[in-house]
């Protein structure tokens, strides 16, 4: 029984050039002795009755393609491992990690009536070249294998099959009543509960009252429910805030904030009072009206900690999770967005912080993970951004968004007593345990320690989620459920807990379908296994729901019911494992009291005067900067066409390669001319000077991107996402308060409500010496605006020679945090602020667009006027001349470089046909809209002192290569070398 078949699938000569990405990654690590790397797939099959003919059948029909591959196989006795015959590294998943291939082999074997019991898959890399053993281990650890989810061996690997384990119903008890304070804290730390003393004390008091110990399941459930991730306790906390004058060190403003969320975020939404809001902040996603028949939902989440350790799986499940948020409001996912922040891609390997992955490997994994989920789910990835900053080296940020569409009034959210609690979708395993608390802890040099991380990090299965989507939408249309929510952080404990938070529920855990046996009750209750939804279903509808599940091949289970007792009761084989009042879980949390302090940092000392900078050299440097340069190589790995609704695509212009300001969608199945624009705004560099400026700029950028493509500023909703350091440190929290205030002020200025938001705190890296490094506090604002008529949508590429070009908005001396300041050490202390008349200007521009007066429109952001003008020219394949003297300015602006590169908010460049000029000027009357240039047939960009061939600008921006198949990284490095860019 123990022997297994080892199958090796080998590409035929000439069919496979070998994994070039991996080879290049190895060279980047300095493993230049590596000459070649050949990749073979491995399959391991086991079954008591499995015979050679069965293995042959599987190899021929399923495992190999005779046109491109051949195979060889042999029986192996586990006690006598194969000898190593050539230099190779073999890699396989840890048992229990999602392995779709193994799953499909099992299913197919069943269909073929083959007696196959266990399957494992793996990879064999044959290494050619001069590498010693230490090199091979480096190659394995840093390129071929991620030990968080995989293991490797130099030589033939012995597969680890999942063994059937006996059911384990052990319950651990914790006598909190008798613990002193330090013991309480020790317990919190040992179990990684991320609960502070005050919180633990509440539990101790509770134990004393009920006169019994807490079970492991109860303790873990409370920790998850009260985690920063689920409960947002920092945004609910009372905060004593003060601002310090940097010169006198005296407080200049002291105030008491009664909750950041309530006082600023929700307050902004309430003050905006927009009638088209359907649901804000209470559901899994914000919901607004779309047309008479439909509503739109939008949610943006982060998945930072998991992506740092296992970039593919982290980003993958990040997308999967936010798509489930949209399913959780009964909507069809119609678009995915991704905003990614990484460390410098050219970081020398020796500077990679201990226990973390190289930023290049993180980027490759994250991009692949995002694409894998969206592409396989059939949801187009239509908008995003990629940013680079040294502050993200140990803590990358991965923001995943999803937009949904649903018929109006189709989302039921009234669970009722007697409803059955149905979980459907993926099976439950030991994966993702304690994800919510994990994300509330610092990453440190030991975070990738597999005992903790491999259960906290998972790989998704988008196909299961696609099947679940089919069932959920069909069940919605048939009106089969009273409430729905997704299983995210905290797993069933959180999903059922939330659903039962007023009624209470009874749950029987041994009805949960498991991936493998041997889970303890608390693990079943807390597991964050992916691709699961929980529905509250009236008993009479169960047969119809079962029918839908059968049609789409989705597994489901009836776990219990809603009781109305207000008590959360969970049993395993009839033994109670949780018996807690829902009131304790959802209202028992002690409110935090925090201190916040803000002091403006000293402005960076300037070493270079503007006069010393050659404008043309600067423009080329900025165009080649990774933050500005073409992201085409990434964007093309995402399907942005599926669902046939992408009206303005992420890439646009004469060669389908210009950078769109925002995406415009016309959701399939909706009638009339109405569409929706999706955009984002983010710039962490401003935040290093002043988080307030960062926040207002992010709002302004998101709004102007949406308006640029035809979005109506009066039908625009916002989402806020904060990624910050440890909020218990007053300086970190002080910056966060500044940012939240900026969000409020900017939202009020545009009269644009927040409909949903999320915060991810504790993004800090703790090294062995105890040194803490927080990320640069980062605000992402996502915007969604109704486009009243998609036939009026506008793209950013210049359209026709002879057309006039206008600049809208005033330019100020705002070079603080600018891209120019990142490249040249200039004295620049003022980041962009909120422009006056922001909404009035946006409205006027929108009116002009709706009247069809605008041929092209592009917002001015990183790199200011110069970069925006260059992008419009290269996307249109046309020349552009702009007279800098005509650019309207405000305040003291006296240097051409300030006009060219200042990043003042509230500005657009607009192309208008000469015949439409009078009408355009008429509509824009009263706003700063000034004719400043003209589109030229000759492909040259003339901007005051700058005169450059558009082909040169394009080559720098695209990375000097026409081979788009090469990686972004290569393009970028070439660019940097060429321009002599200095990245601070």
């Amino acid at each position: 029984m123990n022997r297994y078949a080892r199958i090796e699938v080998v590409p035929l000569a000439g069919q496979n050039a070998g994994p070039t990405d991996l080879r290049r990654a190895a060279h980047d690590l300095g493993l230049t002795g590596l000459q070649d790397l050949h990749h073979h797939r491995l399959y391991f099959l086991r079954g008591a009755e499995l015979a050679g003919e069965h293995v042959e059948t599987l190899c021929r029909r399923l495992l190999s393609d005779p046109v491109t591959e051949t195979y060889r196989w042999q029986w192996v006795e586990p006690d006598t491992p194969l000898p190593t015959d050539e230099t190779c590294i073999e890699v396989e998943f840890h048992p229990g990690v999602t392995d779709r291939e193994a799953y499909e082999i099992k299913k197919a074997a069943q269909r073929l009536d083959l007696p196959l019991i266990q399957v494992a898959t793996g990879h064999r890399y044959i290494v050619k070249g001069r590498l010693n053993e230490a090199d091979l281990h480096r190659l394995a650890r840093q390129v071929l294998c991620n030990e968080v989810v995989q293991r490797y061996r130099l030589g033939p690997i012995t597969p680890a099959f999942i063994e059937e384990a006996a059911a384990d119903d052990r319950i651990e008890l914790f006598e909190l009543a008798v613990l002193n304070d330090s013991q309480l804290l020790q317990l919190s730390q040992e179990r990684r509960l991320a609960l502070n003393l005050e919180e633990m004390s509440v539990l101790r008091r509770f134990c004393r009252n009920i006169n019994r110990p807490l079970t492991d399941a109860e303790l873990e459930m409370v920790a998850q429910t009260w985690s920063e991730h689920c409960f947002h306790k920092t945004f609910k906390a009372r905060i004593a805030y003060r601002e310090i004058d940097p010169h006198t060190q005296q407080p200049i403003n002291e105030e008491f904030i009664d909750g950041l969320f309530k006082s600023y975020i929700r307050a902004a939404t309430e003050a905006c009072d927009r009638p088209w809001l359907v649901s804000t902040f209470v559901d899994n996603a914000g919901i607004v009206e779309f047309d008479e028949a439909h509503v739109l939902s939008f949610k943006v989440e982060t998945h930072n900690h998991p992506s740092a350790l296992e970039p593919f799986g982290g980003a993958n499940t990040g997308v999967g999770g936010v798509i489930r948020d949209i399913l959780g409001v009964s909507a069809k996912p119609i678009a995915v967005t991704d905003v990614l922040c990484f460390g410098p891609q050219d970081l020398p390997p020796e500077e990679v912080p201990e226990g973390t992955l190289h930023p290049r490997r993180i980027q490759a994994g994250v991009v692949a993970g995002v694409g894998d989920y969206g592409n396989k789910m059939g949801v187009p990835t239509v908008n995003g951004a990629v940013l680079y900053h040294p502050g993200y080296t140990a803590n990358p940020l991965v923001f995943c968004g999803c937009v949904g569409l649903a018929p109006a009034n189709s989302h039921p959210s009234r669970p009722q007593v007697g409803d059955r609690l149905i979980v459907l979708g993926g099976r439950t395993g030991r994966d993702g345990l304690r994800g919510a608390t994990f994300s509330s802890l610092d990453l440190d040099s030991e975070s990738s320690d597999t005992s903790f991380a491999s259960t906290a990090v998972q790989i998704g299965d988008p196909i299961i989620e696609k099947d679940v989507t089919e069932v959920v939408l069909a069940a919605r249309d048939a009106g089969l459920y009273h409430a729905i929510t997704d299983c995210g952080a905290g797993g069933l404990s959180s999903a059922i807990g939330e659903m039962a938070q007023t009624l209470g529920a009874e749950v029987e855990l041994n009805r949960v379908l498991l991936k493998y046996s041997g889970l303890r009750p608390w693990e079943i209750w807390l597991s964050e296994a992916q691709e699961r939804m929980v529905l509250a279903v009236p008993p009479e509808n169960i047969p119809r729901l079962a029918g839908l599940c059968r049609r789409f091949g989705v597994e489901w289970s009836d776990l219990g019911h809603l009781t109305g007792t207000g008590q959360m009761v969970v049993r395993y084989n009839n033994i109670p494992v949780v018996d807690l009042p829902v009131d304790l879980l959802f209202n028992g949390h002690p409110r935090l009291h925090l201190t916040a302090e803000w002091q403006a940092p000293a402005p960076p000392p300037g070493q270079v005067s503007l006069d010393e900078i050659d404008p043309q050299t600067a423009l080329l440097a900025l165009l080649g900067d990774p933050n500005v340069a073409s992201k085409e190589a990434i964007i093309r790995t995402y399907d942005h066409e599926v669902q046939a609704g992408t009206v303005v695509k992420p890439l646009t212009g004469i060669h389908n390669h210009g950078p769109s300001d925002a995406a415009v969608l016309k959701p399939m199945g909706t009638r009339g001319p109405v569409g929706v624009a999706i955009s984002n705004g983010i710039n962490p560099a401003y935040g290093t000077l002043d988080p307030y400026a960062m926040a207002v700029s992010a709002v302004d950028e998101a709004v102007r991107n949406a308006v640029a493509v035809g979005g109506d500023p009066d039908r625009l909703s916002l989402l806020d996402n904060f990624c910050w350091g440890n909020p218990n440190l007053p300086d970190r929290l002080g910056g966060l308060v500044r940012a939240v205030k900026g969000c409020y002020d900017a939202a009020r200025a545009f009269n644009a409500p927040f409909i949903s938001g999320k915060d991810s705190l504790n993004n800090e890296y703790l090294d062995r010496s105890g040194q803490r490094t927080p990320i640069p506090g980062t605000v992402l604002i996502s915007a969604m605006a109704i486009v009243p008529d998609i036939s009026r949508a506008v793209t950013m590429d210049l359209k026709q020679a002879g057309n006039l070009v206008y600049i809208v908005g005033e330019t100020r001396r705002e070079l603080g945090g600018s891209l120019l300041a990142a490249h040249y050490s200039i004295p620049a202390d003022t980041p962009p602020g909120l422009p006056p008349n922001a909404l009035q200007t946006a409205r006027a521009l929108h009116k002009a667009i709706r009247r069809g007066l605008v041929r092209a429109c592009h917002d001015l952001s990183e790199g200011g006027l110069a970069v925006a003008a260059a992008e419009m020219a290269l996307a249109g394949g046309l020349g552009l001349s702009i007279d800098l003297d005509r650019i309207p300015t405000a305040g003291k602006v006296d240097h051409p470089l300030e006009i060219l590169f200042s990043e003042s908010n509230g500005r657009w460049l607009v192309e208008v046909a000469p015949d439409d000029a009078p009408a355009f000027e008429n509509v824009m009357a009263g706003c700063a809209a000034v004719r400043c240039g003209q589109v030229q047939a000759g492909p040259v960009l003339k901007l005051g002192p700058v005169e450059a061939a558009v082909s040169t600008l394009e080559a720098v921006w695209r990375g000097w290569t026409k081979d788009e198949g090469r990686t972004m990284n290569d393009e970028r490095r070439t660019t940097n070398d060429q321009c002599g860019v200095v990245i601070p």
Partner: protein
Amino acid sequence: MKPRVMILHASGINRDHEAAWAVELAGGEPEIVHINQLRGSSPSHRLADYQMLIVAGGFSYGDALGAGRRLALALSLDLSDDLAAFIEAGKPVLGICNGFQALLKAGLLTGDTPPSATLTRNAGGRFECRWVTLTPNPQSPCIFTRHLTEPVYCPVAHGEGRFVTANGFPDRLVALRYAAEDGSPANGQYPLNPNGSVGDIAGICSASGTVLGLMPHPEDHIVPWHHPRWTRGEQGRLGLPLFEAGIRYVR
């Protein structure tokens, strides 16, 4: 009466709705049917009740074990007789992207087992989404493409679309080729030929001409605003005529 067109759905298929939209615009009556509704002891739907079949794009069964291979196995285990009868009756079958991969690997295009041609990983080694120009082969008997009067412009979105054969491929069974925008051959040049397919082959048909498989997505260019440069006034070269030709053929 409008011809009834079955759009085959299976776990992981995701371009079924736009295929249905294309059929509707082309004058057919589409119905998305899950493969589970066609199999078992008392299936609720029968292939024989339809006049045309579309196997739509997506990632059936996650494309584990190679794109389309699991769906191909399901087709040959569950629908082999029904499909043979359907094709024998001269009813058209269109496989797009993942549907092409499945039809090819099930032997329904080349007619041999194991098939002498396959679709494998793109030469660039990664999934790519980009617009391509397709020119019809005038020598092909393909009922979907033989009346095309202009090239088709539409996106590809796949990671395993490189057409490879064991011993060459008969020219007359090539239905569509990747080409430059002016219609001249791509000659294997990236990105005109986005995946490194031999002979710039983007789509092939059965000897009868009634079964077509192609990697690009004509169903994603069926209205003018699908065109990536519609804001520049560019239009035409829709993918819709392929669907119209299929509907015309069965009407």
